């Protein structure tokens, strides 16, 4: 990250090194066009600053945010909004055109929300025509999640605690360097990193009790890749070799005494945790090989395909030491201390391939055949050594554990597109999905593995109608009747439809509508799944030409989810429906009148978890000077839940900033 920022700071210096940029920039524009032979292919004057254009263009917005109040639950506010008070670099977006073309032709930089905000982004794109292109993307997101309604068995006792909570930061970096872009052979290298670091609360379960304990999260994944793109007229190939390294050092600890969630007496004794030290030390690596093929062998035929082989593996070292009063059902005794050590490994060879062929036998007809397969096989082994102190004496045990998961998944689809009219295209098709899997069987069945198959036949239809860019209607639908699926909730007998339309009523008005539907059912006697999700949306965009100081953007969406499925209540062994309902209304409006904008968004839902979430805003943009704008924005965040009033919050925020443009 430091390297990136240093690079960012150095870029303007490189650009400024060029003497007399204005004259240099003018020169090519004033010269007459050279004959074709005189132009060197690699010397593309693409991004030179033309006459009259600045070598630096962009904007910078710096401001201060006040948060006078956060009423209600601060933890919910942080879980949902998480914006803080203070000076911020709200946004910057600039382009450097290097007149000297030394080192680079052009650099684009965009950064937002720096200076303490929970979401920081940075993107840098530097290129020199015909020589290289370097892109770097960085994102840092604060992940705070602490909601008692999620996992708090002590809520009825008045304790507000989320026993699965996080206060971490996730950082993602991606850098890619393409050499000789637009040449016959383009090599490239890339690097990605994802890290998570922070604290939280997790559960520790042993015997008949479970305890909320402090947790430390620390993991990092690095991905390295290098490849080459080869373009040979009608045939193109990309070959890429990559690899990853992974490490996870999560730990949990507690200094006790911790009564846990079971606070009563068990066989006349409480079950406290006096101390805990738990450490995961997972190290992983993988390689992958990727090959992409694209070809236009004939004017009536196109072919694309890809093949990927990956082999991720992990090595696990786990240690746990705990003291307290625990009960172990296996020996029907209490024990006072436990020490577990586990070493293990898991390997998951994973092969994927796909092939697409498009045939154009007639001018109006296209046929697309698609085939895909995805196969993996996880084989894992672990050795667990347990050492317990039972009535003052050690009791040791060792278990050799193993597990596997196999999936062979395939899909074949054929679609025919027919241009019935120049404006109207019809589509029809058929898809067959099939596969088989082996997974670990439930504990009490006495089996090691359980198998299941997938057989799904899907019919497909679609229509597309358009008049230029003015009117556009797209509809597609698919339906399936399956006799075998993997899970009770999988798509089995389903219908899916989607209709989308947009209409440019005039140069000032744009209307759009979107409708989607999914019905799924599984009539098996012990499942009785009946699921339906329907969403309707409409939007209006108004930008009057005559009244340049007014505009309107409004979106409304209504969603309805209805789900019924049967499960068996363990304590009564009676089948009971799991019912879920969600009826949501969502509205976003922004109306602009000269320097003022008013609007915001709201979400109101009823059903299983009634919620309202309002985010109104008012903005004032005043052009102070030719290149300076004063922006002041007021926002109101308000969330209320009918069933979990303890998590409601409200907050006012005022942000004032200056935006400089050049």
């Amino acid at each position, binding site marked *: 990250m430091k390297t990136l920022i240093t690079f960012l700071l150095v870029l303007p210096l490189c650009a400024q090194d060029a003497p007399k940029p204005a004259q240099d920039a003018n020169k090519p524009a004033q010269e007459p066009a050279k004959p074709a032979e005189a132009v060197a292919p690699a010397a593309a004057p693409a991004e030179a600053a033309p006459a009259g254009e600045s070598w630096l263009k962009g904007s910078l917005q710096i401001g201060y945010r006040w948060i006078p109040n956060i009423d209600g639950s601060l933890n919910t506010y942080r879980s949902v909004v998480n914006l803080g008070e203070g000076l911020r670099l709200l946004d910057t977006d600039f382009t450097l055109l290097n007149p000297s073309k030394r080192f680079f032709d052009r650099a684009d930089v965009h950064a937002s929300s720096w200076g303490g905000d929970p979401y920081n982004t940075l993107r840098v794109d530097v290129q020199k025509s015909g020589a290289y292109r370097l892109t770097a993307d960085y994102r840092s997101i604060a992940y705070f999640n602490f909601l008692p309604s999620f996992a708090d068995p002590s809520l009825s006792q008045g304790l507000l605690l989320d026993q699965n909570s996080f206060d971490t930061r996730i950082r993602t970096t991606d850098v890619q360097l393409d050499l000789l872009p637009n040449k016959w052979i383009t090599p490239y290298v890339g690097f990605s990193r994802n890290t998570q670091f922070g604290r939280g609360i997790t559960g520790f379960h042993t015997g008949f009790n479970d305890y909320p304990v402090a947790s430390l999260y620390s993991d990092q994944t690095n991905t390295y890749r290098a490849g080459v793109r080869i373009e040979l007229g009608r045939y193109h190939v990309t070959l890429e070799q990559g690899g990853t390294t992974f490490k996870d050092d999560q730990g949990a600890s507690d200094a006790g005494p911790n009564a846990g969630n079971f606070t009563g007496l068990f066989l006349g004794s409480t079950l406290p945790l006096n101390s805990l030290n738990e450490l995961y030390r997972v190290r992983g690596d993988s390689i992958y090989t990727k090959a992409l093929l694209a070809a236009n062998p004939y004017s009536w035929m196109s072919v694309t395909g890809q093949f990927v082989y990956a082999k991720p593996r992990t090595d696990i070292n786990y240690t746990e030491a705990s003291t307290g009063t625990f009960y172990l059902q296996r020996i029907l005794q209490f024990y006072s201390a436990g020490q577990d050590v586990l070493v293990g490994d898991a390997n998951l060879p994973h092969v994927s391939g796909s092939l697409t062929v498009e045939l154009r036998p007639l001018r109006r007809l296209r046929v697309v055949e698609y085939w895909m397969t995805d196969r993996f096989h996880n084989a894992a082994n672990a050795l667990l050594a347990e050492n317990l102190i039972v009535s003052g004496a050690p009791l040791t045990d060792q278990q050799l554990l193993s597990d596997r998961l196999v999936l062979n998944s395939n899909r074949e689809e054929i679609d025919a597109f027919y241009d019935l009219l120049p404006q109207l*295209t019809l589509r029809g098709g058929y898809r067959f999905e099939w596969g088989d899997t082996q997974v*670990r069987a439930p504990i009490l069945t006495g089996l090691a593995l359980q198998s299941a198959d997938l057989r799904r036949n899907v019919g497909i239809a679609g229509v597309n109608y358009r008049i230029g860019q003015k009117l556009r209607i797209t509809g597609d639908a698919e339906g399936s009747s399956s006799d075998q699926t993997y899970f009770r909730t999988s798509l089995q007998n389903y219908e899916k439809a989607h209709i989308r339309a947009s209409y440019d009523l005039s140069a000032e008005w744009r209307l759009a509508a979107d409708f989607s539907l999914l019905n799924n059912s599984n009539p098996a006697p012990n499942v009785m799944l009946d699921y339906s999700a329907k969403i309707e949306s409409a939007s209006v965009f108004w930008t009057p030409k005559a009244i340049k100081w007014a505009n309107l953007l409004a979106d409304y969406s209504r969603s309805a989810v209805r789900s019924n499925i049967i*499960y068996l209540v363990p304590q009564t062994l009676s089948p009971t429906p799991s019912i879920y309902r969600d009826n949501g209304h969502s509205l976003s409006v922004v109306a602009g009148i000269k320097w003022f904008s008013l609007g915001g968004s709201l979400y109101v839902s009823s059903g299983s978890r009634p919620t309202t979430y309002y985010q109104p805003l008012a903005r004032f943009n005043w052009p102070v000077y030719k290149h300076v704008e004063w922006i002041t924005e007021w926002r109101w965040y308000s969330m209320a839940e009918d069933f979990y009033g303890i998590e409601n919050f409200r907050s006012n925020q005022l942000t004032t900033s200056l935006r400089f443009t050049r």
Partner: protein
Amino acid sequence: MLNSSLTGLSRAAAGIVLMASCLTISAQPPAKSAEPAKPAEPAKALEYVGSETCKACHEEIFNNLQKTPHSAIETGARRGWDQKSCESCHGPGSKHAESASADDIKNPAKLAPGQVDRTCLQCHLNQNTPVGRLASGHAKDQVACTSCHSVHGAGGAKLVIHNKTEINQKCSTCHLTQWASFNRPYKHRLPEGAMSCVDCHNPHASFRDDTVRTAFGNEPGCLQCHSDKRGPFVYEHPVLRLEGCTACHDPHGSANPRMLTRHEVRLVCLECHANLPIPVAQPPSLGGVPPALHDLRSPRFQNCTICHTKVHGSNVDRTFFR
């Protein structure tokens, strides 16, 4: 319910076809009045005239193009269109140059999306992102490349926007229902500008459903940021591998914490782990478990992840306790 939905769909489809027919008829050019037949002229072969000829009338467009990566077509000999970049997409322009009539030149904006795509894919078929374009959802829905890409670089020197906020605005103009989900309280941080739609989706194509990007070669793109969930684990939670993250999460947004598909954790779990065996006559379903002893009336057992903490996969315990 299903019948009524299907009936509604049928009516909607019939309405669309009817409306399309009417609009098509109304869009036809009026019949020309009968004119005396002219003697047939020998058809001239169409020829390439070069970009300088185009520039004479379309200077602004030409100058914009020269600021974009497409300028390589004009200046590079590799693709065979040097000094003819305009005609590389618009076709030979000799007739148009003579008549100045828009009818005499190929205008991709007026072509069927499939034809537009073929024009672009002549050069771009092999690039990493559009390689699976032929089978993508956008291609099936006849969304042409030019719906998102500005070929001439109008409004800037970029062929496509890179600013996350602008990307989201672009996608949301069509994907209204998806964007509405981001008004919900628990969502990925797209409205805040921390992420964009293309961080998770490859708009060109993916061999995964819903054009979800791939990470580490062939795994779901979700793992690019949530790589601690990648594994492989000693004990996998099969649903993650077989159905993906969306079996339990609504990644666009939800009113339920952690973007869960249900309002309580136990219902997310129990709908699969239902304690109900499938009858022998039925094909087996995974995830069913024999009756457990959990007393769901106790808050301890209403939050499964309090004990089953490693629900995304465990390296130590087959029941995901640790």
